[in-house]
Every structure is written in C-alpha cells, then in structure tokens.
C-alpha cells in the first residue's frame, strides 16, 4: 500500500514534565494524516528505542525542554542504530540552542524544530524525508 500513513513516535526523553508541546504536535500530526504513537513523560533513551522498535515507526520525534539534549539525543540515536533502526528519521524539538544543532545533526538528528515552527512545516519535512514505505 503506497499510501500507508506515516507512523510517528512522539517521545519525551528526560525529566522535564512539560508535554504540552508534544501533545500539540501529536494532535497536529494526527490532523495531518499521520499515525502518532504518544508514550508520555519521562522516557529513558532505552524506553524510546524499545517503543520505536516494537511500533515499527517511520519517525521518532523527540521533545525535550530540560537542557539534557546533548546527553540524551545522541544516546537515543545510538540505541536506534544498534536496534537496526538506522532508517528511522529522528527529529527533535523543544528548547535547543542553535549552537548545539550541528553536533546533534552529527549524532543522527535529521532536523531540530525550535519554538515557532508550524505543524505544517514539521509535516512537510517528515513527508519529504521519511524512508520509502512499501
């Protein structure tokens, strides 16, 4: 089925307790025709990788506001690769300083969406960059 919906995991790694943004994005992507798995707050990198594997998602979207992105996001990318999920598109959003973005890209994060990004922009990026679906 070439028109299978894109399946996205929206995850909140780390200890911040603010998931308004993640929920708004989850709902927004739902309205854009994506199938969105939301896992809730305070996920460890291992939990995120396990969920991505079990759910066979096309995209992992990570929302993080705690400042721990330089520790957690590269670790998640590594765990995904170790699980054979190196074809999964990883994106991030939240409060991430511009200076950190090059290192995150280097670690495997395809795009970082900061405050002010529209849902439509995120959806368009995912549709353009997601792995081919059979």
């Amino acid at each position, binding site marked *: 089925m070439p028109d299978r919906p894109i399946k996205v995991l929206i995850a909140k790694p780390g200890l911040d307790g603010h998931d308004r943004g993640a929920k708004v994005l989850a709902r927004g992507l739902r309205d854009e025709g994506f199938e*969105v798995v939301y896992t809730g707050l305070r996920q460890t990198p291992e939990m995120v990788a396990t969920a991505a594997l079990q759910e066979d998602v096309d995209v992992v979207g990570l929302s993080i506001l705690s400042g721990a992105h330089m520790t957690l996001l590269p670790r998640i990318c590594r765990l995904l690769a170790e699980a054979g999920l190196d074809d999964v598109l990883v994106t991030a959003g939240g409060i991430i300083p511009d200076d950190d973005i090059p290192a995150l890209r280097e670690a495997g994060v395809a795009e970082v969406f900061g405050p002010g990004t529209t849902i439509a922009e995120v959806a368009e990026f995912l549709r353009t960059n997601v792995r081919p679906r059979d």
Partner: protein
Amino acid sequence: MPSPPSAASTGRPAERTWVGITGPPGAGKSTLVSALIAEVRTAGRSVAVVAVDPSSPITGGALLGDRVRMQAYAGDRDVFIRSMASRGHAGGLASTSGAAAAVIDACGFDLVLIETVGTGQAEVEVAAAADTTVVLEAPETGDEVQAIKAGLLEVADLVVVNKGDRPARAADGGPAAGHAGRGRRPKVGSGGAPDRPLPKRPEVLITTASTGAGVPELLASLDRHRVAGRDAATSEARLARAEAQVWAILADRLRASLHAEDRRAATESVLGEVAGHRLDPYTAADRLMGNLVDSDV
C-alpha cells in the same frame, strides 16, 4: 496489496491464549491491560499486547495513546506492545490485528492481549478474534434496559466492572453485571429451538485497575477460562475466527477494488447518485457488486 502472515502460517494455533479486551472509551481498558501486565510479569510469564485506537475518518490520521498507560514495561523484553490504527475498519479492531497477534503469538508469548478501540454497543469483532473476551464496563453508564440490550455484553466471557472504587458500582457490579451474570438460558420447549445458539453466561468481576484491586482474580479467571476452552470443542470458535479474519480482509479488498483506478469513476458516480437521493443505497450496493463481477475481479 501485501499479504500479512496468517495465523495458519505460524503453525501453533492450538496453543495460544488470546484475550480480547473491549469496552467503551475511558472505561479503563489500557489501565487494566497495564495492571494485567504487572500481574502476568509477577507470575514470571511473558505477555504481548496489540492495542488498537481509531483512525480519523476525516484525515486518516490517528493518535495511538495506549502506551502512555503501559510505560512501566517499556524496558522489559518479556513485554511487547504494538499500537495499531483501525484504518477505517469497523468492528473495534484493525483489519490486520488478527494477523499481527498471530505473528506476535508465533514469537512465543505466553499471553496475547488484544485491546480494541473504545467500543459502543455492537463492535463484537474481537470475540471472534480472541479465545476469551473481556468486556469492560465502568459504573454509572446505564440502567437495566441498557444492560439487556443485545450486542457487546452478549459476547463477553468475562464482564469486568472497572473503577470499582466508585461508590455507584454497587455490591453486585451494577445493572450490567447483574444481567450479564444472571441471564437465564431459554428452556428447550419454551419457544426456543433446541439447537439455537445460546447467549454466553459470563462471570462478573469487579476491578480497580488504577490500584490493581481485583486484577489477580481476573488473571485467575482468565486462566480458568483458557483451560475450560481447551477442554471444550473449539472448532466452532476457530471457524468463527477464520471467518472474521477472512471477512476483514475481504472487506478491505472489496473497498480497494471499488476504488481502483479503472473503477473509481463508476464507483464515485454511483455514490453521487445516492448522495443526491436519486438512487437507494441497496440498489447502489447491488450495482457496485455488479461492476466488480462484470470486470472480473
């Protein structure tokens, strides 16, 4: 269209225990599944969950939120959770839920839980897909007339009244439980044909999934039901399951055929006539079936 692996191809249909969990939105299905996972893991058994949430009829998108209540087990290799969107399939499951459960089952999980979308009164498909069907109800959701209506409650092997800490649950689980549990079988010779299928007589349990109260009893009851089901002749149940699986796939293929490139225009024109009140839906369905036959599916 790809063909997912079938139950038949996994080679161990007789061993498996598939438990369907269904009930209205917000009754506590995901929370109860989470509590069941805890109980099953305490007993040292492995468990897999197929959790279905609805697809948007408008955009085709879906928000699959069942994992939120099951996070405690995200790092446990003996717990596998797969969320699925219903993708337009009616009946409470996705058309591929049975196939997904079969694949997971073939991996050797001791227990496979199939959680439906939040159901209303008539989404009974899970009863054909699962060995044991649990219908979950919340207190304060209806009176005795609701409880004697046909549909979901009839297919329950177990009726679980969740949120048992609510005052209105009543000692007996409320009206739904009372009727599900005490329903009388029609007597032969009192108007019912002797070979007419009889409604099930489900056991009724009360749980509070958020605290785990009643969950050990539920697992024990599921185990009893599994043993009983293994002893009883289950060919009828297997036939029903086969029919449900094939039916789900057939319905999908029919729809796809009617929307295929070479038939789409004809299909849309018939639908348009129904929308414009120029054609009744029955004639329309006959005509669409005729289109399929004429062009040799």
